[in-house]
């Protein structure tokens, strides 16, 4: 399943963002951030304690089932009083959740997490970026492995000179996408796909900000 992969901000940044905001209501989420242990039940409880220790008054907290859902506003309505008392909603969800809450409640929001990428759990406790949503998919020519996402430089014509024993020049824990693609295409007997010169990519497949309107026919 596609997941939003997050990481908690540093304590220094959290305290800076919450400076002058004494009363805090904390919101977690039961899906992606529970999986990554960044905003599930135990993390929200631990955050309540940490912020109390720093002198914040915690007016309440909740772990929403799915923070990015349209019904998030309704789900939060039963915490109306605790939310009203708070100076800020401190949100331990991905950026989708933060924006959903911000759109539905007239309340100052502060994210507790940085959203790193959209990916999936590829092994227990390991998450990998899968798609950048570039709007110009070339998976059909790369054996189903995306170099736009998985190559650090997003190269589409083969590896750079930094590839090292199948690993990336920036991190030996990261695979060289082009070694993976080469091996896959070789197994499939379709290496010609890699020999084909790829023209410069269209970086405006869907110009930012993305928007799609399906017209009723």
């Amino acid at each position, binding site marked *: 399943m596609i997941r939003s992969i997050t990481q908690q901000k540093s304590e220094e940044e959290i305290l800076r963002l919450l400076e002058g905001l004494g009363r805090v209501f904390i919101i977690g989420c039961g899906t992606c951030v529970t999986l990554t242990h960044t905003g599930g039940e135990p993390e929200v409880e631990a955050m309540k304690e940490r912020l109390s220790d720093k002198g914040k008054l915690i007016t309440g907290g909740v772990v929403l089932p799915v923070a990015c859902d349209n019904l998030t506003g309704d789900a939060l309505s039963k915490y109306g009083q605790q939310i009203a008392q708070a100076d800020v909603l401190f949100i331990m969800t991905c950026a989708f959740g933060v924006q959903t809450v911000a759109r539905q409640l007239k309340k100052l929001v502060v994210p507790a997490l940085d959203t790193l990428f959209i990916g999936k759990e590829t092994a227990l406790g390991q998450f990998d970026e899968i798609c950048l949503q570039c709007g110009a998919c070339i998976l059909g020519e790369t054996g189903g492995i995306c170099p736009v996402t998985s190559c*650090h*430089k*997003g*190269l*589409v*014509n*083969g*590896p*750079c*000179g*930094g*590839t*090292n*024993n*199948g690993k990336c*020049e*920036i991190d030996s824990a990261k695979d060289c996408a*082009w*070694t993976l*693609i*080469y091996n896959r295409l*070789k197994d499939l007997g379709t*290496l010609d796909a*890699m*020999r084909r*010169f*790829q*023209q*410069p*990519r269209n*970086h405006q497949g869907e110009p930012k900000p993305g928007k799609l309107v399906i017209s009723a026919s």
Partner: protein
Amino acid sequence: MVSSFKKALESGKFVVTSEVAPPKGTNLEKMVHHIELLKDKVDAINITDHQSSVMRFPSLGGALLIKEMGGEPILQMTCRDRNRLALQADLLFASSRGIHNVLCLTGDSVLLGDHKEAKSVFDLDSSQLLAAIRRLERGKDLAGNDLDGGISFCAGAIVTPEANPLEPQLIKFEKKIEAGTEFIQTQAVYDLDRFKQFMDYARQFPAKILAGIILLTSAPMARFMNKNVAGVNVPQEPIDEMASAPKGRAIEKGIEIAGRMIMRIQEERMCDGVHIMAIGREELVPDIMAAARLV
């Protein structure tokens, strides 16, 4: 406009290139000194483009300086910092100022340099940049629009003959050839028997090949490269030789080894020339050339 470097490549002589690095700042004294030392000894001087992703005086400025000083520059251009508009514009400018050699590189990651939070571009890759040059030479930009006044370049690229795995690297190499590269400067080679195997393969292509020679400055430096530089493999033998040098004499040993390698490459006509890199010690390049009996 045919560059003197291109003429040298086509003459069949053993071509020698070297490189200088722009400074971090505007004090050009050291770079000027290095250009002065090299300009009449080598066929062309590469000028690096934010080498190792460290922000410096621009390669375009360095190339102009080489030109003004009467040398023959090879403008290094990476795809890391400029999109296709900026790359094409810089090519127009370079050509208009008499810079007619360019080396197309992907570029190191910004994470390897000193501005680690910078946005990296990679709008084009090295093979696409080569293709862009050929297209500009035909009078059209990458959007298909006509140019008013053309450009002309002797365009080159790099290859890592000791990359592991090698096959994906060779596919990329062949794409660079197809895109129109006229010369190749290789990553540093030390095992010449293995380099010969690479040349047995590479000789079938029309591009001229210059073997990369990096001066060894000490045994620890060689071990460091083996550990940290992708595609560089210094065999045990030269490492031992460096280690055996008397204290304070390692550089001389490094010059001797580099000279010996260049002589063997030339004697056995392994490839079309050499590209000598004495990273940070450019003033030693004439000594290496002397050790190789090139001057």
